[in-house]
């Protein structure tokens, strides 16, 4: 497979904070590559360096074979960018903003088709300030596609949106991939990374701690499933670890997650323990392990505190 983005040993510090600390990765043609991590992990900084709007302290970045440091304008001509916050020209209409952005590029896609794609046909004469959050986000995706780019950069595209808008945007992104474009996306939503991304890099404190397909990441770290419940009284981790089949225990604000490779055995043992000690198990459910669990295992904390 052909790599459209190559990042090698990227570093960037702000004063004494290492925002990006020796990051290397590849994004291949036609894939959705996700960077997953908590706020402040260095996702946005990394992305903005690759886009050519921020300068790295060291390291090498090429996009579509172009060195970002040497020719940022050429990179910018060939990529589509959506930034985290997007309030654009409040008093221009959707169509006017699109036409304006199209004029920045030597070649542009059909504006009307793009408006149709992001489902803004009914609002194309609306001023930007009157758009809803979801509509603004869709407009900013349309703007990122206005030059018909080979690589699309999306920085937390569904942040703060309701579930329906989120699903809309996911299907747009999948459509973009179906056209053979590559998508580089950052997110702090586990669900988004798992559902949307072909490959995910988990990033924390400026370092990539794991990169793979979402399912592979999960199966690599967990052969077990997760059993979650709440307890009416506090139990020590040791007590829970001793329960049959349990391989790992995480307790957070009264919520307990135990990982087990033999769920039926563990559940019945837990119920026995509860009867024996006289406490109650509530809200018990069993689920497959997710990227969230992987993150928890690798970093010892949840992605969203």
């Amino acid at each position, binding site marked *: 497979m052909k790599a459209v983005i190559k990042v090698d040993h990227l570093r960037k510090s702000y004063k004494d904070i290492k925002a990006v600390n020796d990051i290397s990765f590849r994004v291949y043609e036609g894939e959705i590559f996700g960077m997953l991590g908590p706020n402040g992990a260095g996702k946005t900084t990394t992305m903005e360096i690759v886009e050519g709007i921020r300068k790295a302290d060291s390291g090498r970045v090429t996009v579509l074979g172009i060195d970002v440091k040497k020719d940022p304008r050429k990179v910018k*001509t060939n990529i589509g960018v959506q930034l985290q916050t997007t309030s654009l020209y409040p008093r221009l209409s959707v169509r006017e903003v699109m036409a304006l952005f199209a004029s920045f*590029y030597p070649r542009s896609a059909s504006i009307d088709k793009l408006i149709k794609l992001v489902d803004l046909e009914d609002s194309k004469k609306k001023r930007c300030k009157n758009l809803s959050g979801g509509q603004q986000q869709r407009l900013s995706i349309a703007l990122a596609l206005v030059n018909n780019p080979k690589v699309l950069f999306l920085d937390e595209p569904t942040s703060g949106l309701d579930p329906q808008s989120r699903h809309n945007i996911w299907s747009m992104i999948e459509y973009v991939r179906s056209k053979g474009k590559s998508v580089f996306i950052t997110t702090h939503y586990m669900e988004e990374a798992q559902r949307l991304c072909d490959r995910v890099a988990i990033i924390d404190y400026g370092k990539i701690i794991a990169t793979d397909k979402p399912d592979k990441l999960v199966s690599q770290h967990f052969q077990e499933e997760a059993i979650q419940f709440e307890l009416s009284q506090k139990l020590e981790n040791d007590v829970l670890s001793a329960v049959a089949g349990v391989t790992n225990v995480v307790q957070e604000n009264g919520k307990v997650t135990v990982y087990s490779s033999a769920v039926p055995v563990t559940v019945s043992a837990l119920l026995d323990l509860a009867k024996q000690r006289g406490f109650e198990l509530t809200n018990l459910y069993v689920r497959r392990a997710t990227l969230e669990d992987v993150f928890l295992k690798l970093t010892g904390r949840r992605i969203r505190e």
Partner: protein
Amino acid sequence: MKTFNMLLVANAKQFVREKAALFWTFLFPIFFILIFGAVFSGGMDNVSFNVGLVIEDDSAIAQNMSDVFGQVTAFKINEGQRKDEIQALQDGDRRAVLVIEQGFGATIAQGGTANISVYYDPTQTSSVQILLPIVQKVIDNFDRALSGSITRIHLDEQTLQSHELRAIDYLVPGILAMALMQLGLFAVAPIVVDRENKVLKRLGATPLKRSTMIVSTVVFNLIVAVIQAALIIIVARLVFDVPMLGNWFYLAGFIVLGTLTFLAMGYMLSSFAKNQQTLMPLIMAV
């Protein structure tokens, strides 16, 4: 060039669709002129003009002529030396100075055409328009009584610019300057807002050149400045009859230079101000 035009149009649309900006840029200076103009123009209605009279000829006919001028009720005659009276005109103490030139009597006696010079300030259009016809009429009457149909006395018009201007005449250039200053300084507000809202960052992610962007904003503001100045001058002329002294070309030059100067200052301020809230006090301080 296409990008440049699109940015210019985008700027214009953003501007025109903001009612508040339109008000402050165009209507406010005009209100200012109208209000102050109304306040300061109260004293303009007295019909009596201070007129200086210089008699350099000692003939009887010159004496007669001066007596006739003295009888004009609209004139308050001050007799004096040419030098003093012209100085008084320049200081704004006279509306006009009439000079009965030396040899006035002798020339008429010989059948020639004698000169009476009138000095006035052409910028004082309203008073000159009343004053000059009166002088002309008086002289014509005198002439007719003297010689029948032949013109013996010629009115020689001399224009002199006085330093005295009406309050409104001062006010208009002041408002013009103030408006340009405001325009230049406040013109950077949208840029600071754009930076705050990350619009500039988004533009930075496109191949758009910074120079194109900056030049387009500067050109846009120049256009606004010229429209604004034209409006102020037109209103001042139409409503208050404020004269335009000097060269239109220079005026245009000063408008452009002034706008550029204050734009430059505005840009400088915008680099200190993190957001709009900190920008405003900075502008006020300037």
